[in-house]
């Protein structure tokens, strides 16, 4: 898990596999309403479902963990620029919780490579989509989220 994902773009890769990504997004960061379609998927990347929150401080690691267990291949957590939370501390707390520095956190049971934190402001829709593409590429590299017999994702580490 990192604040921004950095992956070289892949030229040749198995295009049959499309990772399913759940994006948990603060409504005051990137302009979600402009970016999603009627199904609440990103227009530019239909494999990304968007769930909207009033503040990234409402997103707890347990949610991301559950999403991975529910079979999502990756989870994106998006908040405003660090230092500029509308509610003063929300994105700082989100970052601390996901790093394991603040309660409640269950992040040690998550596959960190499948969770990315992103800090993007309102006018940065394009930069956001760029990072989504990089994250997708990283997930393609990782391959599908392994599931157990009961359909749940294996817990790693």
């Amino acid at each position: 898990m990192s604040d921004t994902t950095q992956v070289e773009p892949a030229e040749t890769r198995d295009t049959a596999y499309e990772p399913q990504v759940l994006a948990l997004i603060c409504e005051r960061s990137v302009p979600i309403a402009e970016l999603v379609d009627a199904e609440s998927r990103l227009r530019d990347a239909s494999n990304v479902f968007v769930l909207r929150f009033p503040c990234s401080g409402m997103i707890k690691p347990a949610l991301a963990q559950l999403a991975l267990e529910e079979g999502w291949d990756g989870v994106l957590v998006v908040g405003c620029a660090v230092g500029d939370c509308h509610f003063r501390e929300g994105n700082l707390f989100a970052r601390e919780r996901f790093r394991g520095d603040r309660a409640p956190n269950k992040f040690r049971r998550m596959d960190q490579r499948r969770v990315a934190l992103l800090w993007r402001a309102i006018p940065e829709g394009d930069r956001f989509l760029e990072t989504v593409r990089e994250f997708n590429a990283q997930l393609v590299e990782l391959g599908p989220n392994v599931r157990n017999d009961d359909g749940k994702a294996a817990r790693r580490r």
Partner: protein
Amino acid sequence: MSLQPIDSVARDDLYEPRSPYRRFLRQITIAQVRLERWLNELVSYEQNPFYFHGAIPTFVFWMLVLSGLGLLFYYKPTVNESYESLQYLGIVPFGGAIRSSHRYTADIMLIAVYLHILRVYITDRHRDYRIVPWLTGVGLLSLVYIAGISGYLLCGDERAWGLTYQIRAALRSVPLLGTGLDTFFLGGREISDFTVVRFLFFHIAAASLIFWMLWMHLLRIRRPFLVVTMGIGAAVIGLTLMVSGLWPALSFAPVANPLDPPAGYALGDWVFLPGFILLSLPAIGPTLFWGVTLVFFGLLLAVPYLLRDTRKNIAQVVRDKCVGCQLCAIDCPYAAIQMVPVWNERKNKPDLLAVVYPPRCSECGVCVGSCDFDAIELGSMPYARLEEMVRDLAPRRDAAAAEAAGD
């Protein structure tokens, strides 16, 4: 019905603002965020002065208190000696530097406070549950003005007594109370040494009240950002020293007669005294002066009431689930949650229960993120547990994936 995008809570019109004023606020917010992001690229988010909008005035205020204490050692509050005692600072080692920096940090503080007001206004951080910080902020602004203007009065030079003349004229023009205000202002019917002592009292009282008002300002703000970074602090100190070196703060000529009208003002006086500089123009009388001042502060007080949100997402505690762990009360950025003891019959001892004070709640959901027991929710959360939302999405995702594979 398709949910788009899937909301964890139903919200007011953040994306399609209905009223023109709301749309205007949204537009200037975006412009400001763009500016701040650009600055982030230059100085990194950790050093971005915009993110220290409240800490910078606080820091500058501490600088003022320190340099003011330095001046207090030499200042003599009498009509005849105040001027001389400040001139004497020119001989004392660093005396001139301390005087200049006291003068210019005051200017910097006022400018920093205005930038702070502009930022909280532009980024829509000025209304509803922030009403206490805003209203006490207007109090702080008036105290900063009182401290600044009375600081000018202490110098005992032409400018100080000219300003006294103007203030007296303005006070006397107040109906009914006029003479009383004048006497209160002078500490007697005539200008005497008591007058200068009174000016010193105004100056120090206003500065002390700033501490008290600042405490109220931050009452509802958890963990306020009060400390600037080394970089920003060095920049502020550097700026002060640079301006002090280039244009040392000096007195005007000694006054011939304390009852004379102002002889003129310097360029730098526009920061604190624009009202009085304009008032010295023949065309502007005390009525206009008072009118503009009252309208300005009236508008400041009215601004937060121009726009109000419907409150549908105030946090609610589920009493049976709350275990009293206090995490939400610690995390709430606006101090909206109190832990109260509740008698537990079974254990025969009190338990703690989280209680939300609705007017303080910003509907941010940070407490939902803090609670590991799903014991706190926002008003319009579609599910008691956010987890259920994520669970519900999985079939939708699989259907979409199957469809994509079928194509």
